[in-house]
């Protein structure tokens, strides 16, 4: 773009609007500024301002008995508390879960996205699109409680498995330490399943878009050069869908990192980052500690975004 500024042009005839138009045309920097000022104000002031307010709060202490924030002096006590083993556990657990959910979402989303992008045509494509979008439009909470019912010990899944005489399978799964538990809805496996379910559409759509952008001739070229389907997949499709995966994973990763409702309803009562932050602020009123703790996901996401950007995710979002 040619952004040099030049002397005000000789006015073309016309009203003030036309003159403003002339000015904007010849001074493109000005036009750009006018376009970007409102969003920048909003994001710079409202959003970043809020984040800074949060950051500032992380340096305050709390009067432990009354629960009132003490704004008179700054302290690093919240950051020290964050390093307690229990909190470190929470962070590691959450990040591990977020990664697992992201991987699983990718694995499940990929075939769907691939099929939508390359094979589905006409009404079938529309049908699939709706099928993917519809869950997004039905209340997240109601779906969550529906999962509770599905996963319960006497719920739909065990009922079906019992009918199929496959209960032993479920029991074996639930006996696995680390992921198992008393029933699916009381296990970390259950939390995992529900996370995967909830964020799956957010993974499907960007991957689908990324695959649609791969020119068909590339796949044909691969086949032409002797590659079988699987080679083409791993050497061509998958790398080229990577921006879509990265974009989708920003959602799956970040949503998992921050959610506090799902693990509250489904799971084994071990806490995730979102819950700790929520409890510290909403329940315990310990805003400073919550603020400090919420820096963890900010940092994690920051690192993640940095990697995702390398993979070209922002262009595919």
């Amino acid at each position, binding site marked *: 773009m040619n952004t040099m500024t030049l002397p005000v042009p000789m006015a073309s005839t016309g009203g003030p609007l036309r003159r403003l138009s002339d000015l904007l045309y010849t001074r493109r920097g000005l036009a750009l500024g006018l376009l970007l000022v409102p969003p920048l104000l909003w994001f710079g002031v409202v959003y970043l301002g809020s984040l800074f307010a949060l950051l500032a709060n992380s340096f305050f202490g709390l009067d432990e008995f009354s*629960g009132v924030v003490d704004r008179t002096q700054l302290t690093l006590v919240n950051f020290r508390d964050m390093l307690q083993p229990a*909190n470190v556990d929470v962070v590691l657990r959450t990040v591990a879960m977020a990664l697992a959910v992201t991987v699983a979402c990718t694995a499940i989303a990929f075939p769907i996205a691939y099929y939508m992008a390359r094979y589905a045509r006409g009404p079938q494509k529309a049908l699939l699109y709706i099928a993917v979008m519809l869950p997004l439009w039905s209340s997240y909470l109601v779906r969550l409680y529906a999962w509770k019912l599905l996963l*319960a010990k*006497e719920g739909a899944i065990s009922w079906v498995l019992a009918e199929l005489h496959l209960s032993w399978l479920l029991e074996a799964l639930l006996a696995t330490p680390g992921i198992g538990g*008393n029933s699916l809805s009381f296990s970390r496996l259950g939390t995992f399943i529900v996370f995967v379910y909830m964020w799956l559409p957010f993974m499907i759509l960007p991957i689908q878009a990324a695959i649609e952008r791969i020119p068909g001739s590339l796949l044909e070229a691969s086949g032409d050069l002797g590659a079988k389907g699987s080679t083409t997949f791993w050497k061509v499709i998958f790398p080229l869908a990577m921006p879509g995966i990265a974009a989708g994973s920003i959602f799956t990763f970040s949503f998992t990192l921050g959610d506090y409702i799902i693990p509250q309803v489904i799971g084994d009562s071990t806490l995730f980052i979102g819950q700790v932050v929520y409890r510290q602020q909403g*329940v*315990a009123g310990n805003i400073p500690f919550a603020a400090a703790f919420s820096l963890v996901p900010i940092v994690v996401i920051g690192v993640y975004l940095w990697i995702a950007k390398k993979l070209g995710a922002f262009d595919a979002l």
Partner: protein
Amino acid sequence: QTALKQIGKGEGQVDIVAWPGYIERGQTDKNFDWVTEFEKKTGCKVNVKTAGTSDEMVALMNEGGFDLVTASGDASMRLIAGKRVQPINVDLIPSYKNIDPRLQKAPWHYANNTHYGVPYQWGWNVLMYNTTVFKDKPPTSWNVVFEEMNLPDGKSNKGRVQAFDGPIYIADAALYLMKKNPALGIKDPYELNEAQYKAALELLRGQRKLVGKYWHDAFVQIDDFTNEGVVASSSWQFMANILKSKNRPVATVVPVEGATGWADSTMMHAEAKNPNCAYMWMEHSLNPKLQGDLAAWFGSVPSVPAACKGNKLLGDDGCARQGYNSFERISFWKTPTTKCTTQNNACVPYHKWVSDYIAVLGGR
């Protein structure tokens, strides 16, 4: 700050932070409505914000914008200490004298010879159990949820018991230890010195292995007793009532160790914008009809004894069923602080309870 001297004209509305189900206007069940009539009578519109835990109530009050709060004992002292609530002039509340004498000057709302709240309701954290599992051998001790053992149906209790998902539950453990291990010298489950506290946490860590999922909200626990094979847990009478009404095989008991409980008071924000309507509500909140209906609705005990008789919804045995006569056996919720009389002011404060309970849940 001094209390109001007289009630003026209503401001037209009153904002209340309350437990879920505490202030009903007949939206879910027409029989349970104690707001509409009040609004009609006084012209004060009632706005309710529900809070799920005591901590949340404190947080909401600290943020401000409310007139009243139905605070439990573990929240009320913090509100008073934080100067979030103002003294109440009980003379402006004619029904105050009808309140159960045991509650009129209860320590969770009466401090420094000043009233800071009006008792609303109270209840206990009973042991709820499944009667088909326990059959003719109902549990008598909290040990069924704390210690690994075989239940009368021959199967282990592992994975079939629950505990409350809140730091205050440490007190339940202390209560159990008070009886089980007198050598620890626990006098008050909310006042624990370092050693006692450690023992309680140790017990809870053991319990973690038995508990599949901690209960957090009442209806999830109802589901858990229905679908998840949970057979024993600390609970509120409320859940037991609902499960029984659905013909589920449950019963409640107060074990030999006693039980923790909660007693709620309506307290008024220090900067309440609608003090007149607030006073009118506090007066209204003490009428026997409301108290009885609410007790029936919530499974709690009225703070006005008159409510126990003749209430259609509650029934004549309602108060007794819900713990009216067990007042002395209940250790009511209060906020643990370092200042404590029973352990020479060397108690573990609440904020440690919060983070340690998170650790316990995390298996640490």
